[in-house]
């Protein structure tokens, strides 16, 4: 036990030592934040990664690419602004002589940028995620330049990130660091798995004590989280089966048993154990009077534990009801 703790401490200490200079080496616009490779295009952020799928499969690189070949650059937007911005992406040979310290000023100082450009994607609006394909035939130093022009304000934001392709001559230390990191990661994941397992077990216990939705037209009434409303539902599909689009009639009462009319209702939900939402966007299509509302477009596409969150705004109160079902 003591040995274990000691080993852990030594690992941590050695790692921190090696990681410190690593942070200062962050290349321009691309940085590692909480284990995630991030590109900062002005205030617009995206998860950044590079693959060489045909050679190294699912291995992700943050900026330096260890191997020549067909690379896929991916920017997964963390900011909606990027979905609407015009993005252009340029890759040039690094002729600035400043290696990894090249900045936008150095690039602006280049006379004929087209002569050293090896990739250019003209400004386009690409929603959700940006990808591009570029083959590198030569090892060497390159610079990526990404600009995002907001179509509403017309402002342009730019990120510059120098990177290397091929053998990166830094000696044996990175390997040792990588080895230690692996050990540490392994340790981290082992301990995390344990706690995750415990968390799942706890969740299962909690869930098994939760009332599960009765799938026949149920008389059960579900209380909203702050207690303002009580909700019953009846499904036009009985019993509720997977893969069938159907509708429900909700009956909403206030805490003192009065029908709630004219409420604004929205529906969301999903399978928390699978990290996914509903396959459809159900919504109220008709208010039937005396606190009853028809919700159409409900479909469940897997067996298992589902949650449906009904948000109710009656004008005087706003509250959520969580309906759970086991299909």
């Amino acid at each position, binding site marked *: 036990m003591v040995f274990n703790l000691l080993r852990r401490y030594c690992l941590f200490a050695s790692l921190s030592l090696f990681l410190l200079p690593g942070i200062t080496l962050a290349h321009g616009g691309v940085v590692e934040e909480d284990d995630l490779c991030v590109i900062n295009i002005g205030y617009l952020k995206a998860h950044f*990664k590079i*693959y060489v*799928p*045909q050679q190294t*499969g*699912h291995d*992700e690189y943050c900026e330096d690419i260890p191997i020549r070949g*067909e690379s*896929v650059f*991916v920017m*997964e937007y963390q900011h909606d602004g990027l979905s609407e911005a015009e993005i252009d992406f340029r890759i040039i040979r690094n002729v600035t002589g400043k290696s990894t310290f090249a900045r936008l000023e150095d690039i602006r100082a280049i006379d004929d940028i087209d002569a050293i450009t090896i990739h250019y994607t003209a400004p386009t609006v690409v*929603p*959700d*995620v940006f*990808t*591009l*394909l570029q083959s590198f035939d030569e090892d060497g130093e390159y610079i990526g330049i990404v600009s995002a022009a907001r179509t509403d304000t017309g402002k342009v934001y730019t990120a510059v990130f120098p990177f290397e392709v091929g053998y990166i001559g830094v000696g044996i230390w990175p390997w040792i660091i990588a080895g230690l990191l692996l050990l540490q990661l392994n340790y981290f994941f082992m301990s995390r798995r344990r706690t995750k397992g415990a968390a799942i077990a706890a969740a299962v216990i909690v869930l098994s004590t939760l009332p599960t939705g009765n799938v026949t037209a149920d008389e059960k009434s579900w209380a909203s989280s702050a207690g303002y409303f009580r909700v019953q539902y009846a499904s036009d599909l009985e019993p509720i089966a*997977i*893969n069938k*689009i159907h509708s429900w009639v909700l009956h909403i009462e206030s805490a003192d048993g009065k029908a709630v009319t004219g409420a604004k209702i929205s529906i969301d939900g999903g399978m928390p154990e*699978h*990290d*996914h*939402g*509903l*396959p*459809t*966007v*159900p*919504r109220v299509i008709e208010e039937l009077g005396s606190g009853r509302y028809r919700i*159409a*477009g409900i*479909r469940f*596409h*897997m*067996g*298992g534990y589902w949650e449906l969150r009904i948000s109710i705004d009656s004008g005087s109160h706003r509250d959520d009801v969580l309906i759970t079902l086991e299909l």
Partner: protein
Amino acid sequence: MAATNKSRRRWLILIAATILLATVWYSWQRFRNPPPWSDEERNLIASLWIENLQPLPPDATNAVADDPRAQALGHRLFFDVRLSGNGMISCSTCHQPIRHFSDGLPKGVALGISKRNTPSIVGSAYSPWLYWDGRKDSPWSQALSPLEDPNEHGSDRLKILSVIASDAAYRRAYESLFGAPPDLSRQQDIDRAFANVGKAIAAYERLLKHGTSRFDEYVVHIEAGGDSLNQNIFSINEIKGLRLFIGEARCTECHNGPLFSNNEFHNTGLLSIAGETPDRGRIDGVRTLLADPFNCFGEFSDDPTRACSELRFARMGAELIGATRTPSLRNLVNTAPFQSKGQFQTLLEVLQHYNRAPLAMIGHNEAKALGLSNWELRNLAAFLHTLAAPIAADQHWLQPPPID
């Protein structure tokens, strides 16, 4: 004295050997004979049975969907090479009856190379969404796209309508179904007649349904109270594969129901193929679909109510990045290579991919690593082979119509 000692030792060895053999035998039996199905497992197995498939619901957007005249017209159109830019490509070039209406290639090859793997048409009328990215919401609307795709048929709607006008049998069939021929000076008439061509092809495609597989025979056997182990329909490995399929391997989360598909869109962390960026999947498919004049909301749909119970509630959002449609697993052994870009040649490769569940290149891989052994993956593959079945359609629909 020495002799007694020797014989006693011999006895001891004999007893030890017997115990060892018995243990080995017992473990072998345990290994050979999996336990009988629990009630829950039986229900899950029955939910996959082809007999539990609902009758094909009517397609309100296609007034001729179940009209025998449209089926016959669609049958001819499906095999007609005149509906192509070079006079050599028909729907059956890629959707080959002999290959379960797919083509055995990673991606379709016609005039050029298609964007994705050719899916089988069999049973497709059951799906609310068509194409791997779900960019179509009806079989008739789907049938229009390849005709004008430069890499596929490479024709266009005007040329296709002129083929119909120039063929007496086509003209008769068209007019009896849809009335007067289109006024080719009016774009709306052209588009409507083009949609009608798709509706006839879809009427034919609706006839192609999945037949009874060995798996279905096994379900009949155990539903009738037969011994789940001692029978000559399923081998021990196939039974083990089925148990994994409905249990530990979590396949039925998406491949559920009698067609082994929830017809939904999932990101499963596939690698992009050489020369391409990762497939964006449904996130683009749903946008294309909403902008498509031939969708369920469009003026060429025959449903006056425009109920569109699926399209109306279609979801957008980040979950759809890199998500492709769950394909049916029925007959998949006849539809290799697998996945939307034909990434995998063998079932075992597919299963190994799901077993690892790597992080997705774009979006979020919904699958979780399974941690199954190679033996278990082989059993799963053995089970998947039992889903092969002949197509449940009259033989004459499976070959080109006789020329009259």
